[in-house]
């Protein structure tokens, strides 16, 4: 145990008291700046300003460690009390963010004024992150000079996190993220940003076809007026497929025939793959007293109404087919570049396509039409700082493996006492 001699505040070496005061000061300054200026615009730091800021900040940290390490502030930033107080400040701000719906105009005015509903572009957050990064950077410098092999795990974690966060913060100003709405047969070379402005793109896209595959729908018991699924039957719901048979809500239900795409012809359904067709099934229902009924159910589509099969006259419940969920969807497109190249590609969820520094993502489609959607929305993203961030990510990944090995072997006598 160290002696508990009282140390005056702001006398070297600084400790936790200075840390809390420092964090509080930054918080108050940040809130004041926020009230005065109304927050930050994310693209004011666009290239090359962000590069200069990143180099300047890192240079400042490295320089002050090399030349001014005796300074109270510099030596304090490299030690744990600064790390913990900056972690606490960032945690506090992110905690506020965790309880506040972000980017929402419904928040009370004071919440918006203090920047709590746009936390990541607020002054308190910026100052908190600057403190965090200064502490992280200084701690890295401390272990980096002189370099020792046994510090490699520490350096991977700390330098990796520094690179990752710096790249992410500064890179966000250069992140371009737009959507392109494509309609079959049209060539589109404009994209829209989140404010609804149109931006001319260096690439053009033409939608050839939008494709969707669906999971089979499920059999459910519903309350027809509200369309709600009867709660206690949820665990009994089962997949609709020819030959499937199970008990639901006390009835024995057999699927005699399932059609993925069909159309209604008088009282029956017949297979068809015309625009707007819907899944349907012929089912045989046997109640507990042995009476049997047969009938058609269908989840319907934007063109066809759904079909139910009445079950229970006491509550008015009916047998229904749920709306099938998509299993895959993708867009077949032709990509034209400014340099005159032309190629075909399939853009699918989780499988973006790379073109000249841009990544193209399957973003959405016209949900009213489901698999028959005539349009598809492609998100186009350019993030030139990604290699920086990924460098940090992979360093921290290796660092976290090192972290796992830090556990110590137990002392024998502890065995049962803990």
């Amino acid at each position: 145990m160290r002696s508990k001699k009282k140390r005056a505040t702001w006398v070297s070496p600084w400790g936790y008291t200075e840390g809390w005061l420092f964090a509080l000061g930054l918080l108050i300054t940040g809130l004041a700046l926020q009230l005065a200026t109304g927050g930050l615009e994310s693209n004011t730091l666009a290239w090359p300003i962000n590069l200069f800021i990143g180099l300047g900040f890192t240079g400042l940290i490295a320089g002050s460690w090399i030349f001014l390490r005796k300074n109270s502030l510099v030596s304090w930033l490299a030690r744990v009390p600064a790390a913990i107080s900056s972690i606490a400040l960032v945690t506090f701000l992110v905690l506020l963010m965790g309880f506040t719906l972000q980017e929402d105009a419904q928040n009370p005015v004071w919440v918006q004024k203090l920047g709590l509903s746009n936390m990541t572009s607020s002054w308190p957050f910026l100052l908190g992150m600057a403190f965090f990064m200064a502490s992280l950077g200084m701690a890295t410098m401390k272990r980096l000079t002189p370099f020792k092999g046994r510090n490699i795990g520490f350096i991977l974690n700390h330098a990796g996190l520094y690179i990752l966060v710096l790249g992410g913060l500064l890179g966000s100003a250069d992140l371009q993220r737009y959507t392109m709405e494509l309609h079959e047969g049209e060539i589109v070379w404009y994209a829209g940003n989140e404010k609804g402005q149109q931006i001319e793109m260096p690439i053009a896209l033409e939608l050839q076809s939008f494709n969707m595959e669906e999971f089979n729908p499920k059999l459910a018991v519903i309350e027809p007026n509200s369309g709600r699924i009867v709660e206690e039957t949820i665990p009994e719901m089962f997949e609709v497929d020819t030959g499937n048979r199970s008990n639901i809500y006390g009835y024995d239900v057999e699927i005699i025939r399932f059609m993925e795409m069909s159309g209604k012809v008088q009282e029956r359904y017949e297979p068809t793959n015309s625009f707007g067709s819907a899944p349907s099934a012929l089912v045989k229902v046997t109640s507990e007293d042995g009476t049997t009924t047969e009938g058609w159910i269908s989840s319907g589509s934007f063109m066809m109404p759904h079909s139910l099969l009445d079950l229970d006259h006491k509550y008015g419940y009916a047998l229904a087919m749920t709306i099938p969920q998509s299993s895959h969807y993708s867009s077949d497109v032709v990509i034209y570049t400014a340099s005159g190249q032309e190629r075909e590609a399939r853009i699918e969820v989780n499988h973006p396509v790379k073109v000249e520094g841009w990544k193209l993502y399957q973003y959405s489609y016209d949900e009213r039409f489901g698999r028959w959607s005539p349009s598809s929305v492609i998100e186009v993203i350019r993030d030139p700082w990604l290699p920086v961030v990924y460098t940090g990510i992979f360093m921290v990944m290796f660092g976290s493996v090192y972290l796992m090995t830090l556990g110590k072997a137990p002392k024998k006598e502890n065995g049962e006492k803990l």
Partner: protein
Amino acid sequence: MMPFDPTWFTVSSILLWVLAMLFFVFSKRSKLIAFTSHTLFLSGIAVLSLFAVLLWQELGRAPLRTLGETRLWYALFLSLIGYATYLRWNYRWVFYYSGMMAVLFLGINLASPENYDKTLMPALQSVWFVPHVIVYIFAYAILAVSALVAIKGLFTEYFRKDEDWSTQLADNMVYLGLGFLTLGLLFGALWGKEAWGHYWTWDPKETWAFLTWIGYMGYIHFRYHKPAKVVPAMWILALAFVVLLICWFGVNYLPSAANSVHSYTS
């Protein structure tokens, strides 16, 4: 329509584990009792593993989508980690607590039976799906043990001052758990880039995952700097686990999560 009944597996595992813990109480009396206890406990793990494998095959996708499915893996990992911790370090209470937590989580699944279905939304169909979730659940299970050490430590500190106890198990579990937590977070970032176009969007689940992660970071730094100050450290550890639980279950109920991309259970 499943060819096997999930309830049967869940109930069997619960019974086997409860019996194992009962035998374990008397396991010091004879080798036979100890052996029976171990056999029962491992059988519980085996039955649940078999269920996980069968479920995976039956659904044709990794059963890691719904909260109920993650509870299944949690119970499995927790019992495994608890058993391994006991074997390695001989902490008898860890055996009980992890067993009871595993039983509790299976009990929740028993009380709210799920409709296991095959659907898996396209965004989840990725090579990252299994590593991301498994690594996370594994981290959660390890960190649960560290939270137990913290609670036991705080209890001892406030009510049984004379008893001797150590935080070493907590430290070991946090190093291991935070390592996995970090990997899970970064796998999620890499996946996010492929699926949603960005590695980090401050989605509510991400915000709370960050809070969980930084909470354990705070613990490690505090322990490193002030190893003698055990009580505040144990408080950090207990609170970090509360944040973890909010991240895992609570986020779905927070108004701030109205637009989360991480809700797949509806």
